[in-house]
Each structure stands twice: as C-alpha cells, then as structure tokens.
C-alpha cells in the first residue's frame, strides 16, 4: 500500500488538522474537541477515531502496539496493526515496555506506562452525559455551564435502586476539576490509572467526530459520593489459570471442551511474560500501576 497512498494513509493537511485538535485537547483536559473525522478503510465504530490519532502522530522511529480488549491477538487488533504497519513501515511489538505508541480498545495495559509513551484510546461514545441526555446541543450546553446535576442525580438514583452505582465500564470521571468525561469503555479497574499518570492519554471517537485528552499529571477522579466511594471490580479468590496472577484484570472463560469456567488475564502480553518468567526464561516485566 505504501507508494500508492500517503505515509500513514491520511493526507498531510488532515494530519495537521488532527494534530492541532490534539493540542487543543491537551490544553483543555477532558474537553471534547470536534474534528472533521475522515472515513478510513476500517469500518466506523471499529477504531477509526483512535486510528486517525495514531496515524497523525506516528513517525518512522515509533514502535506501535495495538490491543483490543487487552489482547494483541484479537482479529481487530491484528487488522489495525497491519494497517498501521503497512501504511507507515514502523516496527510493531506486543511488549508494553517497548512500544512508544499503544492504541487500545477498552483496556489500559497492566504494566505501568511511562512519560515517553502515548496511549491512544478508541472511543465509541465520547459523551459521558449521553447516559442522561440524548441531544448533543443540550450536552454541549451542560458542559459549558458545568451543569452536571442530571448525571449526579442519575448516580444517586442508582444507589437508591441498587445499593450501588451499576455503571461498570465507561465510568464517568471528572478531569482537572472541570469536565465530566467518558474514559472510553475501560473497566473500572483501569479508571484510577488515568489519575496523575506520567503518560499522555489521547481519546479518539471517529464516528462521533470528537478528540479529547488527559495530559500527564492531571487529576482524574471518578464521580463518587462521600459515603459511596468508587470501587473497582472485585476478583477476590480468583486467579489467572495460566500465570496465576491475582492482581490483574481477569476475563471469565469457559473451556471449549469441558465447559468448565476459569479466569485468565485480559492483558495477554503481561500474562505471557509472567508465564515465561515462571518457566525460567529471562523477561522484563514492567512496574505495576498500583504499586
């Protein structure tokens, strides 16, 4: 494809536009910046927002890692990685520590990311107020006036009805004390990783045509009440069947032959490293977010 199409597929003017919008997004943490999202040869809703960001910032020296639901091997991750690599010629990796840019759908890697890395998150619903308000015109007004009362009432009613807030992924967060933001459909498990991180987080919603960002060392606080604190998923007593991990996000899996239920790390790269380590193969495992 290289030679037929421009480096990174998208034309340079568009990339420049996206980079400008990224700068604006970084300058106003958590604010959704509208952009003229282009169609890519990947279906809308399959990561075109993240992809446009990645293709706009990637240089020949970069190393890319693409994960889908924590997994490098997922067919969509393969497809996106293949597209990025064929149109740019950059190196790809599955190792979180080696990547300079990681594009992800719905997970933040288990190994802590550094200041020289960027995490690009694919976003289906950029608007956290969509839980309570369908109209875009109205939600833009609510953000402008920092009018989040509907969202607070919604969370309060959840507690009244269920005894807790039942939002599981896409948990609303307050960024820099100003904007309520949708952290993309990462599980609650990953939400605290966004707070005061060393890494730059970029969010791209292609279909909804919005870009937003969390710069390093920004306050990111899940919406919570004084007497009802935000809690992450509980895997008490569970462990990964393959690496034995008890402190990573686990997927629940049914064995294809026996039908027996077991748990396994959602971050397959992290899991593989631990398995290598336990079988005596030298491997470098990064620090953890919650150390």
């Amino acid at each position, binding site marked *: 494809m290289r030679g037929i*199409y421009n480096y990174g*597929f*998208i*034309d340079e*003017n568009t990339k420049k536009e996206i980079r400008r919008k990224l700068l604006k997004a970084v300058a106003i943490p958590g604010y959704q910046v*509208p*952009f*003229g999202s*282009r*169609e890519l*040869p990947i*279906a*809308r*809703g*399959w990561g*075109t927002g993240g992809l446009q960001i990645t293709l706009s910032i990637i240089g020949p020296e970069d190393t890319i890692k693409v994960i*889908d*639901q*924590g*997994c*490098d*091997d*997922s*067919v*969509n*991750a*393969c*497809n996106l990685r293949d597209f990025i690599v064929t149109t740019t010629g950059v190196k790809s990796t*599955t190792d979180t520590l080696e990547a300079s840019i990681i594009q992800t*759908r*719905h*997970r933040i890697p288990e190994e802590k990311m550094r200041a020289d890395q960027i995490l690009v998150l694919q976003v*289906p619903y950029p608007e956290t107020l969509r839980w309570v308000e*369908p*109209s*875009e*015109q109205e939600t833009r007004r609510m953000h402008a006036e920092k009018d989040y009362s509907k969202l607070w009432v919604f969370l309060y009613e959840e507690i009244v009805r269920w*005894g*807790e807030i*039942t*939002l*599981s*992924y896409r948990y609303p967060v307050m960024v820099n004390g100003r904007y309520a933001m949708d952290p993309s*459909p*990462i*599980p609650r*498990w990953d939400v605290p990783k966004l707070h005061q991180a060393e890494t730059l987080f970029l969010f791209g919603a292609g*279909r909804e045509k*919005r870009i937003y960002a969390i710069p390093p060392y920004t306050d990111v606080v899940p919406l919570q009440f004084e007497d009802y604190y935000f809690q992450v*998923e*509980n895997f008490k007593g569970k462990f990964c069947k393959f690496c034995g991990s008890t402190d990573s*996000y*686990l*997927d*629940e899996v049914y064995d294809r032959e026996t039908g027996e239920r077991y748990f396994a790390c*959602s971050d*397959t*790269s992290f899991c*593989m490293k631990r*398995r290598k380590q336990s079988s005596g193969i030298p491997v470098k495992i990064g620090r953890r977010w919650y150390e």
Partner: protein
Amino acid sequence: MAYVAVKGGKKAIEEAEKLVTYYRYKGGSTPIEVKQILDQMRMAVYQVMGEGSLYAPELAALALKQTEGDTLEASFLLRAFRSTLPRNFYSLPVDTTCMQVIRRISAAFKDIPGGQYLGPTRDYTKRLLNFELLEEGEEHVKDFMAEYLAEIEDEIHEPPPTFPKVIDLLRQEGLLEIPKRDKEGETKVVDDITRQSLRFPASRAMRLQSLARGETGSMMALAYSSMRGYGNIHPVLGELRVGYVDLVVSHPLIEGETITVGKVMVTEVEIVSEIMTSNEHRDKNRRPKFTAGYGLCFGQNEVKAIAMATLDRAMASENPKAPAEDEEFVLYHIDGIEASGFTSHWKLPHYVDFQAVLNRVRSVREREGRK
C-alpha cells in the same frame, strides 16, 4: 507462544478473506465485467455514488463487484477512497434550470411550462417478473436497439431539453415561505461536512450535505414516518427532475473566468408542503403560505430525493416534536457508513466490558442476598 498467538489472529483474517473470494467464484460462472455493472446495474451504481458521496460511476461499479452487490459496503469503499483525495476546488453553485433533463414531472399542476416528461421510469410498469430475461441474449439487445433507435431517429439529434422550475411559479406569486432559520443562517462561506463535524443547530448547507450522502433506506423510513403521522408533512411534489448538470469551478489563476470540469447526473426534487398551521404562525400579520423542501442526490434515485426534500422540510419545523422534525435525530442517524459500521461493531469482542458488567450484577445480587 505469544508470537504464535499473534499469528493466529492474522492467519484467521487471511483465511476469511480467501473464503470470501471462494464464495464469489465457486458457482463457476464468468466473472462479471465492471462495465456490465456500470451499464446494467445503474440503480445500484447511482445509490452507491450518492451514499459514498463520490461521483465516480466506474469505481462505484467496481465497488459493487468487490462487495457482491452489498450497497452499504460498496458505499463504504467509495467513502474510504474519497478520504485519500485532496479537496482542490469547490464548484460554483449549479443552476438546475439549465439541467439537461431526461425526466421531469410535477404532481402539483396538470400542465406545466415545458410540459411533463415521463422519461425512463418503472413507475407505471406492472411489477411482474419478466421470465424472458432468464434467456436474454445478445440478439435481444441488438434487435431491440435497432428497432428502438429507428423509432426515435428524428428526436435523437435534438439537444436534451431544459425547463424553468415549477416551484418558481409559486415563488413569483409570493406564495412560498422561506423558513426563518434559513434567512438567519445565510452566510457567504458554505460549511463543508467533510471538513467540519456537525454542529447544532446545523446550517442548511450542513443539513442538505448530510442528507445528500444519507442512506436511502434510512431516509425513506424517517420521511415515511413524517408523511404517515409522526409529524405533519404531506409533500406535494412541485417537481421532480432527473438529468445532467455541468459542474463549473472558478479559474484558479484568471479572475472572473470559469472552467467546466464535468457533468453529473442528479435527481432533484422540490416539494411544497401545506400551509403552516402551527400556533406560532397564527399571528395576524402572517398570511397562509406554502413552504418548500429541497432534495438533490447523485444519479437517478427518486425515493431518496423525495425523502430528502421531505426531511429538509420536516426539520425546518420551528417547534420540532416528531422524530423526523428533530435535526439531531435525523442527521445523526441517516449516514449508512456510520450506522452500518457501528451496528456491525457489536460483532467485535466485548469480553472486558461484559466481565465488568457481570462483576456489577453479581455484586448487587450478593448484597441483596439473592445469590
């Protein structure tokens, strides 16, 4: 093992792609020529060009071949290809009274200046399966063409006709109301939805551009809802015309000069809707008038053009109530590429999200002691 696993996903994709090709070939027939699709699947080509928002008949035919006739997927291919093309010019506004018309009808007046032209349409054919087509051969084509061309020999050398617009008759009489919003929104710079995302309230340019590239079926459903009762638009077809228009751009160097860059086939519809009856229009100074809706799309796609004009009018309602009158509702949901992409993205794994949901549901059940 990590390496092997990564290969696994990649291999599966490659094999799936081979299977797609296999399924196209396995019947053993001769591959369809793109020219055949171009000539004989006209309606599909028009639809794909419109929804892909790229006027490229040959590429649209190629896309239809590649996708085995899936118009959504074919439009998507065109749209993706379109992203790689730079925007060099904006054409000057097209005056459709200069359209070289192949079909032109009005449902508002029995006779109109220039007359009605039925043109190529299936509207009044009986919808019976034509079993003769099962055995259609080149002989049939030759015979028909020889006979038909002899029949129309005298007319064929006449240039295609151009006509004044029916709706201008109403306009001259002052019977046509221009919605208030559009007067306010008039600006010199025309918005471009391929370069800016939609903002609400949307300018008329943004609305019409979105509709022009909308998916035919979605637009029809929404327009139909308005005609049927969720809303109040009973469109009278002032005029429907199909034909060719020239596209002209300003000369990039010589000021005041223009260059014709090509010709496109379009369907244009102007509807008039009944007198405004809602309360806000009942003030004493306003006399009853008609309001217009405008539709224009690539190729011959009459259902889409009528739906577009209906929605254009419906969205101009100053006090929207029905879904088709709500511009956010309409404009956010009619794009076939976006809607089909998101609808099919649910096929992607959602293991992580679902695990998070399971965790919450179990947590609530545990607390309530109903485990």
